[in-house]
Every structure is written in C-alpha cells, then in structure tokens.
C-alpha cells in the first residue's frame, strides 16, 4: 500500500490530531466536581483555550495551502477519497464557522450544569466536522454514507446536550429518530442505484446509467430525500423547527449553518458527478425545481407566524436553504461558485444573528420576538449588529447577502431557470417583511421593561466582530467571489 496517499488528506489528519489532543487535554484539564459540591458559573476554562488555539492553528494551516491551491482534482485510495482546491475552500469555510460557534459557546458552557461537559461538547462537535470533511471529499457512495452518519449521530447527542432540560432531550429524540429514518431511506436508495448501475463510484455511475429505469429513479429519489433531510428542504424539513427550538442555541446555530452547508455542497457534487451527464439530469432538476419553490415559499409563510426566535430562525434557515440549492440547478461551474459564496455569506450573517440571540438568552433567558421590543434603548450595539446580520440575510445592499443572492440568481438564470428566479425574487421581498419585524421590534416598539443593559462575554464579542467584518466586507470585496470562481471546476 502506498502510504503517501495519506498526504492528500492533510485536512482530515490535522483535524484528527486536534481531536486527539483535545481528548487528552480534556482528560487532564477537566475537574470533576466532588460529591455534593455546588459549582459556580465560571468563565475560566483551560480546555476552551486549548480548543480555540488548536482549532485556530488547524484553520490557518489549512487555509494557507488553499490560497495557492492547484486546480487539479486528486484522488486517493482507489478513488474513494477525492481532493480539490474547491473542497479545501469549503472545508475552510466550515472551519471558520465552527470557530465562531466555539467562540460563542463560552458563556453557555460555563454554566454550572455544563462545566463538566465542556470537553465533551468540543469533542462531539469536532467529530461531526470530521464526518462532514469525509462526506465532502468522498468519491464513493459508501465513503459518503460513512461521513454522513459520522456527522449526524453525534449531532443528535449535541441536540440533546442539555439532557436534563425536557425540550432538549425531546428535540434530540426527534432528531435521532428522523435521522435514522432518512438514513435508512438513503441507504436503500444507494443500494437501488448500485442495483441499477453495478457501481458506487460517483465517476462511474454516470456512464452506467444508460436509461432512466424505475430502479434508478427510486434510488435517486431516496438519495434526494435523504439529502433534503440534512439540508432541511421542504417536505423533509419537519424536524427542523422542533429541533432548532429544543436544542441549545449554540447547537442550533451549528446545525443551521455548518451541517446544512456541507450537505448542500455534497448534494451539488454528487448530483453533477454521478447524475449530471446522464438522462436523469433533467429529472433531478425538475424535482429540485419544485423542492426549491416549496422550501422558499412554505418556510416564508411559516416564518411570518413565529414568535419564538429560534423557531423563527429555523424557518428562515429552511428558506435560505432553498436559495442555497438554487446554485445546484443546472449543475454549472457558475452555480458551484455561487453556492460556496452563498454559503460563506449566509454563514457569517446567520452566526452573527445567533450570537446575539444566544447571548441574550444566556443573560436574560428571553427568546421571544416581543421580548426584543426596545432593545435598541438598552443595548444599542447588539441591536445594530443584529440589524446588519438581518439585512444581510434579507439581501439588502450593500451587505454581503445582496451580492450572494445576486450571484446565485444569476447562476440559476444563466442555467435557464428564469421562472424559478422570479419566484425566488418575490420570496425575497416576503422574507424582507419578517426580517424587518425583528428590526422593528428592536428599534421602534416601546417596552415598559426592556432587556436590561449588559456586557457580552469576550468570546461572543470576538464572534460578532468576525461576523460583522464578513457581513460588511465579503460583499464589497469582489476578490472573495472571484477567488472562489477561479477554483470552480466540475
């Protein structure tokens, strides 16, 4: 066996190293409380520092080669594992997102009930990230499935992290049950595809799919529904609202961006690689066409109704996922660029919004939209940053969200889906309404007892700074888009 193949896997290996080091550090640094001892909330946590430092190093190390990455696609282990500069970019985007989530998590993890589980949180999160890495880099359905499961089973543990809180436990149970259900269907779909083509390599499937047999169509359907579950597209989205609401806010933010984004990229890769050239291309495009319309529209309709901010963000995330998948339509190189760029921009805006929601929930326990009435009077800076992020999510210029929407619309338009773009545009206007509801609550509405003025913890501040820089600069700095564009290959 040629061991030099492992060199292609630098990202996975360095993440694995981080995981092992964190595991060791957790063994020695975490202090078990003595019998009957009451823990005080404490911000001091060596393990958090270890994780942040190690993970930052990991992010930077993997970002550096990606800046002068070559265009060629390399594969290792007989084609099971694939590697390209674009994949490195996506992994780096996920890294930055995870880093922001870790920064945000400090306040929540220092609560007494979570102190002993600090290391656990970081470890589980990193394991899901490793799963996503493998999923992104897979060149074979089995590899893909292993990555997918590695990402979703620990995710259920994260959702139920506040295990003594009823909602969290319930959300975890719901998530794991539905995840198993969707994985089962997905696996069945994969086996049908194997039956139809006799291979599970993405590159080979296209050549074998000579005609659209029912078997391959059913296989494709189950694959799409399995991925639809991960990306939370309608009609596979039903778990989203309950899980997002019940899970700890930090986990919700991780779910809404990192997990969703990696799955969307994988959806693009698999559909274009395995089913792009075959007769099935028009079929999955038609299916996605309706899925996108349903996702964007129905999620918007639900979002208007919500009072709980986390539930609200769940529906917002579903509709954003619809926009994200617009980049998959047609399977063009431009679509790939637009998708990755959209993911990057959506990530900073959404994490920024969640950072505010989380810190307010930690400080005051308030999570309803009308709790935010008059927030501007007491916490002007937080309100301002929240507004920036919401504006970016809604796509108001000059924030990054407007550019990302523009590019993803342009990609779909050039791929020939003018009507779809029109419907998406109309929905953008609708979404503006509900995003502005929050802004209105913060700035205009009066409140007798608004949330008291408080000082955010440093981690949250750092996270907000990163997100704000992204929201403001990723759009007007055209370099970001053109850099991603230069790496886009099919």
């Amino acid at each position, binding site marked *: 066996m040629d061991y030099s193949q492992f060199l292609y896997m630098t990202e996975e290996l360095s993440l694995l190293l981080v995981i092992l080091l964190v595991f060791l550090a957790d063994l020695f640094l975490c202090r078990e409380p003595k019998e009957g001892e009451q823990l005080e909330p404490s911000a001091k946590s060596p393990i958090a520092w270890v994780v942040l430092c190690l993970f930052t190093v990991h992010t930077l190390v993997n970002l550096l080669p990606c800046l002068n990455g070559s265009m060629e696609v390399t594969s290792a282990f007989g084609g099971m594992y694939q590697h390209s500069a674009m994949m490195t970019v996506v992994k780096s985007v996920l890294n930055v997102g995870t880093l922001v989530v870790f920064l945000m998590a400090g306040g929540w993890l220092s609560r007494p009930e979570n102190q002993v589980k600090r290391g656990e949180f970081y470890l589980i999160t990193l394991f899901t990230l490793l799963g996503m890495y493998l999923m992104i880099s897979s060149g074979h359905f089995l590899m893909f499935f292993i990555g997918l499961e590695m990402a979703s089973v620990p995710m259920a543990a994260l959702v139920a992290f506040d295990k003594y809180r009823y909602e969290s436990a319930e959300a975890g149970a*719901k998530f794991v049950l539905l995840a198993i259900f969707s994985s089962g269907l997905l696996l069945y779909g994969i086996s049908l595809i194997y039956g139809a083509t006799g291979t599970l390599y993405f590159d080979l499937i296209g050549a074998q799919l000579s005609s659209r047999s029912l078997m391959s169509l059913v296989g494709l359907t*189950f694959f799409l529904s399995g991925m639809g579950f991960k990306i939370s597209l309608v009609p596979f989205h039903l778990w989203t609202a309950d899980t997002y609401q019940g899970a700890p806010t930090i986990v919700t933010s991780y779910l809404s961006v990192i997990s969703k984004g990696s799955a969307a990229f994988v959806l693009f890769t698999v559909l274009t690689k395995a089913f792009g050239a075959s007769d099935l291309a028009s079929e999955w495009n038609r299916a996605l066409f309706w899925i996108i319309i349903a996702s964007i529209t129905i999620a918007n309709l639900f979002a*208007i109704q919500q009072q709980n901010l986390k539930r609200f963000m769940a529906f917002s995330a579903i509709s954003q996922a619809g926009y994200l998948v617009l980049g998959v339509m047609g399977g063009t190189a431009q679509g790939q660029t637009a998708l990755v760029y959209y993911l990057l921009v959506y990530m900073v805006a959404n994490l920024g919004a969640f950072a505010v929601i989380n810190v307010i929930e930690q400080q005051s326990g308030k999570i309803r939209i009308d709790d935010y009435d008059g927030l501007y009077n007491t916490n002007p800076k937080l309100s301002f940053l929240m507004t920036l992020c919401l504006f970016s999510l809604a796509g108001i210029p000059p924030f990054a969200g407007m550019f990302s929407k523009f590019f993803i619309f342009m990609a779909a338009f050039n791929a020939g889906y003018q009507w779809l773009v029109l419907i998406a545009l109309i929905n953008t206007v609708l979404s503006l309404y509900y995003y502005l509801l929050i802004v209105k609550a913060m700035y205009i509405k009066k409140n007798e007892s608004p949330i008291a003025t408080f000082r955010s913890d440093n981690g949250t501040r750092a996270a907000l700074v990163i997100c704000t820089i992204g929201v403001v600069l990723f759009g007007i700095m055209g370099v970001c888009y053109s850099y991603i*564009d230069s790496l886009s290959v099919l």
Partner: protein
Amino acid sequence: MENQFIFTLLILLLPLASFLFLGLAGHKLSHKAAGLVGTSVLGVVAVLSYYTAFQYFSMPRVDGVYQALVPINVTWLPLGELHFDMGILLDPISVVMLIVISTVSLMVHIYSFGYMHGERGFQRYYAFLSLFTMSMLGLVVATNIFQMYLFWELVGVSSYLLIGFFYTLKAAIAASKKAFIVTRFADMFFLIGILIYGFYAKTFSFDFVDAENARNIAGAAFILPTALFLMFVGGAGKSAMFPLHIWLPDAMEGPTPVSALIHAATMVVAGVYQVARMFPLWIQYAPDTLHVVAWVGAFTAFYAAAVACAQTDIKRVLAFSTISQIAFMMVALGVCTEMVTGHEHHGSLGYMASMFHLFTHAMFKATLFLCAGCLIHAVHSNDMSMMGGMRKYMPITHWTFLIACLAISGIPPFSGFFSKDEILSASFAYSPWMGWIMTGIAAMTAFYMFRLYYGIFWGTENKEHHEAHVPHECEWTMTFPLIFLTLITCVAGFIPFGKLVSADGMSYDFLAHFDWMLGAKSCAIALVSIALATYIYKGEKQPVAEKMKAAAPRLHQWAYKRFYLDEVYQYVTHQIIFKYISKPLAWFDRHIIDGFFNFLAWGTHELGFNIRGFQSGAIQKYAFIFFLGAIIILFIMIL
C-alpha cells in the same frame, strides 16, 4: 513605472479613513480636534496629489505622449465577459483634477474652521467633507465608466448630505431633496447609457487604445451616439445644464464653504469631466451629437448669464455665474472637430481649453464663494441690499474678490483671461456664429460680476444695518484660503497648459493658437462691460439702474424670477404628473395593489394557521409526510 504610483491608493483611502473615524467616533472629539483630523488628512492628500502630479509630469513621454498609467486595477464583480473593475487611472486630465480637488478641498477645510465655528454637528460636517472628497477623487481616477458611476452617486449623496446640513431649516431640506431628485433623475439616463454601452461595446474600460476594446467599440458604432448622449444627460444633471440646472441655485442653502467646494469647483464639473473622459469616442463616433452638446452649452451659458444680471442674493448670482461658466467648458468640448493637435489644427483646441478653464475657474470661483462666505459671516445675510460700501470694513475680502472678478471677466494677466480666450478661439474655429455668441456671453459675464462687485463693496450702503452691527474682517483661517487661491488665480494663466493636457496627448505651445487680435477684442469688450457696470452701479444712488428697471419691468421681472422655469417645473410635476399620473396610480396602489397584498397577508395568515397541523410535533406524522414527499418527488421525476 506603474509600481511607483501605488501610493496613489492612499489618496482615496485617507479621506475614507477620516470619514469613518469622524463619522463613528467624531462625537467623542472636541470640535477643534475633529477639524484638525479632517484638515490634516486633507493636507496629506494634497501633498500626495502634488507629488503625484510632479512625478507624473516629469516622466519621460513615449512618442510625445504622457502614458496613461493604471497602478491598480482589480476586478470587483465578474459578470461573464463583462466585469466591473475598481482601480486608479492616471493620465493628464485625472492628475490635473487631483490637484484641483485636493487644493480647493484643503482650502475649504481650513476655511470651515472659522465659518462653521461653534455650529452644532461640526464633526459631522467634517466627516461629510471627507466623504465628499474621497468620492470626488475616486470619480476622477476611475478606470472605467462603471466605477465612475459608483463614485458619481456617492458624490451625489455627499452633496445631498451637505446641502441639507442645517437640517432644521425647511429651505435646506427642500433644497437638498431637490438637488438629489433632479440629479438622480438625470443619473438614470447615465445608467441607461452605461448599460447600453456595456451591452454593445462589451467593455466598461476607459482604455480605448487596447486592440480588443477598440474592435469591440467599433462594432458598437451604430449605438454609440445614443449611449454617449444618454451619458451626457447624466453629466448635464450634475453640471447643471439647461433644463436640468434648477437644483443648483437652491443648493446654495448649504453652508457657503460647501457651495465653494461642491457647487462651484468640483462636483459640478463632473459632467464636463465625463465628456472629456469619453472624448475619443465622441470625436470618432458621434461628432454631430457632440455639437448638440455645444449648443446646449451655449444656450445654458446665455440663459444663466441673463438670470445672473437680475439676482440680488449674492450666492445666487454666483450660482448662475457657475452654471454659465460650466456651460463655457461644455461649449469648448462641444466645438471640437478632431483629435489631432498641432499648429494648423484648431479643431482640437477646445479640449485643452475646457480643461484649462475648469482648472482656473475652480480657483477663482472658489475664491468668490469663500469671499461671499466672509461677507455673509460679517453681515448675517445673503442679500445685496444689506451690504454696499463693504470695502471699508473688509479690505482683504474686497481685494481678493476684485481680482477674482477681473479673472472671471477675462482681464489679463489673471488666469481667466487665458482660459476664456482659448475657448473663444476654439468657438471661432468651429463657427463665427458660435464665436460671437460666446463673446457676447463673456461680455455679460463681466457686466453681472461687476454689478455684484459694486453692489457689495460700493453703491448704497445699508447704514442702518451696519451701525447696529459693525461688519469686520474675518479671522485668519478664513482669509488665508482667500489669499492663497487668489495667488493661484494671479499666476495660473502662465502655466503652459497645452504642454500638459491636449486631446491626443501631444505637447503643443498654446501661444501658437493664441489669437492676439481676438484677445485684444475680448479684453476690450470686457473692459467696456466693466465700464458700463461702473457707470450704472458704482455711485451712492443708481439712477440709471432704476430707469432701466422701469423701462423694461417685464424683462427684469422675468430675469429675476429666472424666467419662471421653477414654476414651469412645479406646474409640470404637480399639475400634470402628480394629478394625472400619480393620483390614479396612487388610487390603483391603494385599492388594487394594497388590496391584493392585504388579501395575500390574510390568506397567508389563514393558510399558516391551517397548515400548522403539519408542524404538530408528532414524530410519526413527520415520518409519514417525509415519505409522502419522497413519493411525490418520485412522481414529479417520472412524469
């Protein structure tokens, strides 16, 4: 070669940084500190601009031409074969503009120390000044028409913010809105022109020499006159050409230094600059349309000069004078017939003349406005009737104002004489008609400027007002810019401008084109006009003026009311557009569109309420819907 100019990026970034700093943290600074930050940044920018100009013009010429340099150009938004770039272009005209803008802006920054002393929002004022300077500098160094458009709009925004600076005054708010709406309306045509141009010519770049661009542009030749004219409409809005000039006189509601900077020296010449930028295309593909521009300019010049003769608000006189002078520059560009420069080619003289006049006009018109600011500061009024006999109280203002008046009237050796004479030569080369018309307007210029001068500094003194409040000369921060700009006005005429700027870049001695006969003639005519103005307006009592007013009351009234053009606009917008177009639309909007959306909202709400059942929280149901969805998708794929 281009690397040594990388530092020019600082010319844009420094004012931007100062804007952000003063805008975000300004309220924590004292007035003095904020002003110092803004002014010192501008000082650095001015030094950098001078250094750039020095370096640029001391570069060796290639084939007798100063090369256009692009130190920085990055693709901002790629859109397939078209792309929006951002960068810095240095060529003779952009470098000259850098000097004009940074000089006047620096003087205005210094001047504002005294003028805006103690005003509320002093820091905000300096922040906006920085924003404006940054946008204007970005406009002139744009490497492509789209970048120019972006900064063009930014300039418009900062102008809006500064006109409406005294936001508690109703008139200021109305004026700022008017300025914004009128120029924005014109900019719409600019944008359409850009899009047509980009669509057919497949490039936005100003690099017309590049072989591929030249081929693409040649392929779009049939549409270029239309595209260029639409762009010119945008320029006409910013440069206050008739009939889009109506915003400029009202814009005088802004602080006077702002009028000097934005509405006299820099922003309002953006339209001229735009035509000069696209000049190779105008000459090659749309010469006839270019002459239309010339006639629009000539009419504007005449109209504004006529109105200026009857105004009593000193800033309005200067505003109309500005409109008239910018029209002179437009005319100079419009009368060009060829690119080649040389002794026997007079057809390209106008290009250089226009840029020269732009330069000299910026200096002496800024002086005039800043003098007006000093006067307003001293008597607390804009109206001539409150002044008269001011020469006793304000000697520095008096002398600088007089020199600037002589310059604008075209009396040697002041700078205006040289640049205006070039314009007249160019006009005569195009057609004697145009030449005589422009000479006549030049005579009117001398007349109304000296009417203003005598009205302020001699004439009937408003003793009552002056006794109640004795006018005095302003402090040094305000008089220093006057003196500095006046010195430039005294010497600028002797700059060998033809060696630096010309249509095809070749150096030529402008004395070769200098028609001494014509110079003597125009000088004589200006002197006669001045003598006439002296005769009518110098004395304590002005019997001739009264008689003239009585002899032609209708004409005077019409000119005073600016030929009722504002009323025409009011009528058209309120009586016709609002009444017959907007009202029915509003009805439609309120009843049909709103009704539809109310219905939609109601429907959404009902629907949302009814489909809540899907989101019941029961997991078996979720799985069921999940599976059902998969089946539906399968059917979609099969069918």
